[in-house]
């Protein structure tokens, strides 16, 4: 079984995001870019399934500009067998990203697609679900535990009410949550090995996907700032202050 893994490059989670003064976007020039943390977890899970003999091949997929290669090499160094780079310089919204994945699925026929539950830049939390709908296959979002056997996936989902367990047939789309696993660190020899692993490059335009994006982002604003409050000296003063505000 092949596993396709969504491997998106985003602004590193430690970067303090600055909104451009003219409201045209956020500052991304010169900031550190990394793999979406959820996608590292998705990749780790795929690698573990390969190590268990459940999967035979792990393919990382990135949709983005020409310089995405170095990022995809990280995925290969972590252990993916190969990478697919769908090249586009344009902003790709989740529905379009899902349509791209569907095209790749038609060609690769994976038994499983693993993705992050959300990308930490746009926080859309949509792509996996949209893909599952277009593909007419099961989805298991917010996965905290995944078990594959007898052509079925049993997934424990982290939902608001607690932990929900569902069972799906394969192929399926699983989107992963933070506690699924802890991604491995990349070792130096793996970086060397990754250099000889293949990256297929596909021009977005050649996929025949209508790239009409229905959402227009017209303005970026910094969030309203909470102002720093006061320091109290002890528990009694705190209780008094909260009582005065009618909160206790």
């Amino acid at each position, binding site marked *: 079984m092949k596993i396709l893994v969504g491997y998106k490059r985003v602004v590193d989670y430690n970067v303090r995001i600055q909104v451009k003064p003219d409201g045209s976007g956020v500052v991304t020039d010169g900031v550190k870019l990394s793999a979406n943390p959820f996608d590292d977890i998705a990749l780790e899970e795929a690698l573990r399934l390969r190590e268990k003999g459940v999967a035979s091949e792990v393919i990382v997929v990135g949709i983005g500009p020409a310089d995405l290669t170095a990022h995809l090499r990280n995925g290969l160094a972590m252990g993916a067998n190969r990478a697919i780079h769908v090249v586009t310089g344009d902003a790709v919204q989740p529905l379009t990203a899902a349509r791209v994945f569907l095209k790749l699925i038609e060609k690769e026929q994976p038994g499983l697609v693993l993705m992050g539950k959300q990308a930490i830049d746009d926080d859309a939390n*949509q792509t996996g679900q949209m893909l599952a709908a277009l593909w007419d296959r099961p*989805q298991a979002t917010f996965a905290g535990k995944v078990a594959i056997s007898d052509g079925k996936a049993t997934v424990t989902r982290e939902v608001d009410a607690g932990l929900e*367990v569902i069972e*799906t047939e394969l192929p399926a789309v699983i989107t992963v949550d933070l506690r699924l696993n802890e991604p491995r660190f990349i070792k130096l020899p793996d970086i060397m090995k990754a250099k000889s692993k293949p990256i297929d490059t596909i021009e977005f335009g050649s996929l025949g996907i209508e790239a009409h994006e229905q959402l227009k982002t017209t303005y970026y604003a910094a969030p309203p700032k909470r102002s*720093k409050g006061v320091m109290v000296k002890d528990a009694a003063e*705190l*209780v008094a202050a909260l009582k005065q505000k009618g*909160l206790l």
Partner: protein
Amino acid sequence: MSKILVIAEHLGGRLNTSTARAVSAALAVKPDAIDVLVLSDAPDTVAAEAAKIDGVSRVLTVAKAENAHPLAAVLAPQIARAAAGYSHVFAPSTTFGKDLAPRVAALLGVAQVSDVMSVEASHTFKRPIYAGNAIVTVEADAAHTVVATIRTASWPAAASGAGSAPVEALGIDAALPTHTRFVELKQGGSERPDLQSASKVVSGGRGVGSKENFDIVYKFADKIGAAVGASRAAVDAGYCPNEMQVGQTGKIIAPELYMAIGISGAIQHLTGIKDAGTIVAINKDGEAPIFEVADFGLVGDLFKIIPELEAALG
């Protein structure tokens, strides 16, 4: 002319308050009609609750055995059918709505607006990106149905009680998949107020130190009638269950009072509490970033301070 379909969230025969919050957002669009759609195996009690929400025009029910559990793959095709004639489909931005709405949007071939914080015009919304570090204004194409999830912390629950919307059964014959099956739901079964709708929340972080120590957080919360939350570090360390996590990847909440105890104030945690009324921080490190956003800060050892707070409360 706007007509909005709001997808009801419910569990165990009770309507979740997230539904009334989504109705609030729908009201902000100033539509001609707001219909609430209840998909269930036995929708009657939930529908009766939904019918009381102010501003609801009709409650539509789809009763099917397959709808006993909220499986997105099963519900989405029914909603996509029911959406015909509506300009907007809203669902709460809870794990229920986040799981379901994109599947509906894709079936309709439309984009989705996630986590709507405010409605600027019928097709213009504000939403957070980068863990709330930027707020974008997004315009949806008016030629298509708008599918959106509503950031529940940004909207009060629409008032309930005065309304008495008619309840109508909807016959939908969509082919439903059998490839996805519900197995079980493991709930904490807590008697405490619900984290997402509580007016007071006390959260503990890594500073609490262990699962056993967390009892002092629970005890204090019970004393003031608060729900209990946690940082990711506390959940990861096994001090408390996942459903208590507050933050970018946990719950986004807006209580009147939020008390962060032994929590450093990482940006991903703060994302979850930006809309809290009053934030209190208790931390032994006076330099902890949580103090930058706290309305009241108290530097000290939580194991000493919590008993003192309880004593001061009398």
